[in-house]
């Protein structure tokens, strides 16, 4: 038996945009165990719920993450609305769906850029981020914010979007589609990318399920879990199928994200066709008295906001289980047996969002 050594990976590492630490136990160049630890950016945001009234806490909920920020606010609002039995206007539900899909687009393009950069594919990195700018521009022009939108509120949304602007957004996305197809085709059919990703970091379907994998990490292993199928917001009125790949390797997880870009564009287009006229918010009075596990599909998978209120303006508990947090055990499993040189690729293939996981 070879001598075992432990190599620290992170919290500062060129491929990690955020700090996470992995103790990699190696035999020669092979990883035989990986032990993660977090806490470098833990902010205790859940605790703040005791000091902020529930309508204003949505700003804190949105700041859990700088990538899927909008969907955090949406999920939080949805949880309060379920407890208080608030009927959100249909137009607001469609707008929420549109902004959620814009968030997915900007997140997937951000990931694609970071991933390409991580494997030295600088041209793909620059193209992905160039295209992402158009998405951020649309988010900014419709919500007022590029990263933190602040547009979702309990009872609806703060801003309406004119029909002309919605049509313009769809035209913009359709105009971008050939460039996006070109980018994803080049990425997925490049022999170097394929060589780096195929057969690397395999997560079997059964393991993915019992380890709690969600999002593209689960769907890349053949598990069709997509919370959008529960029909929250306007997803119940939209036709779409989750993108599922079956190989379970790093390539499959990347392919799921790349293909989901086009699913998002299609969902936005359907929303713009079906969005009804009407108000975008309802007046909310009172305070939540009860509990609810509010769930939504973030770019990285299922997010859970557990909300518990006792009829007062301050909630008793707000607990967030983010997709990256539950994707940590699968990461441990898929790192076992891989080569040390493949660790950055495998880590990036689950698209970790550490700020989100830490809260």
């Amino acid at each position, binding site marked *: 038996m070879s001598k075992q050594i432990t190599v620290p990976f992170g919290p500062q590492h060129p491929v990690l945009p955020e700090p996470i630490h992995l103790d990699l136990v190696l035999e020669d160049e092979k990883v035989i165990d990986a032990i993660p*630890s977090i806490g470098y950016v833990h902010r205790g945001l859940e605790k703040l719920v005791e000091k902020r009234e529930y309508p204003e806490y949505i700003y804190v909920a949105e700041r859990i993450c700088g990538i899927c920020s909008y969907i955090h606010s949406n999920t939080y609002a949805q949880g309060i609305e379920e407890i208080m039995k608030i009927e959100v206007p249909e137009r607001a539900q469609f707008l929420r769906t549109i902004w959620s899909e814009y968030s997915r687009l900007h997140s997937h393009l951000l990931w694609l850029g970071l991933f390409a950069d991580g494997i030295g594919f600088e041209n793909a990195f620059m193209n992905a981020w160039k295209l992402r700018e158009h998405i951020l521009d649309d988010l900014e022009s419709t919500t007022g914010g590029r990263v933190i939108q602040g547009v979702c509120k309990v009872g609806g949304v703060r801003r309406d979007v004119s029909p002309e602007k919605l049509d313009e957004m769809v035209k913009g996305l359709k105009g971008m589609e050939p460039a996006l197809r070109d980018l994803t085709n080049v990425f997925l059919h490049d022999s170097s990318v394929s060589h780096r990703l195929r057969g690397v970091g395999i997560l079997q379907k059964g393991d993915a399920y*019992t380890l709690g994998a969600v999002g593209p990490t689960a769907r890349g292993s053949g598990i069709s879990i997509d919370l959008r199928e529960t029909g929250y917001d306007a997803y119940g009125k939209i036709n779409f199928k989750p993108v599922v790949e079956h190989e379970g390797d790093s390539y499959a997880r990347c392919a799921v994200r790349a293909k989901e870009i086009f699913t998002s564009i299609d969902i936005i287009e359907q929303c713009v066709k079906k969005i009804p006229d009407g108000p975008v918010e309802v007046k909310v009075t009172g305070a939540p008295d009860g509990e609810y596990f509010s769930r939504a599909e973030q770019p990285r998978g299922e997010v859970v906001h557990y909300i518990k209120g006792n009829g007062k303006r301050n909630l008793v508990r707000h607990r967030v289980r983010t997709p990256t947090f539950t994707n940590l055990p699968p990461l441990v499993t898929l790192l076992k047996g891989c080569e040390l040189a493949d660790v950055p690729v495998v880590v990036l293939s689950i698209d970790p969002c550490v700020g989100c996981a830490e809260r």
Partner: protein
Amino acid sequence: MINDKQTTLLIGMDELVPRTEQMKKDGCRLVQIGCTKVGDDYEINYTFDKDYVLTNLRITIKQDTVLPSVSSVYFGAFVYENEIHDLYGIKVAGMNIDFGGHFYRTTIKQPFTVTVTKEDTSCQNK
């Protein structure tokens, strides 16, 4: 409306591991384990999902109770159990990966407190 059914079952601590094993046999996915402080007690929710139907197993314990780990049933439970230990100070026995209180490498040790100054009590854009 959301097609998301949720059920909560109150169980005793001795039922926790057998019930969790049954959940796994029934093909459920472990969604999360979360802790909530309720008065002097701690409420722990073990949340499972199958076909978008949520089932919670809930136990209520005191802080000095030693919780049995379910990580032998669901390997991924170790992240939640270490989190509960680090943030709430509840001991969990038999975790498959026990960080010994160092999963969250925070400089300020739990329990956390929140201080809001008088000038900072209202939000500007309610």
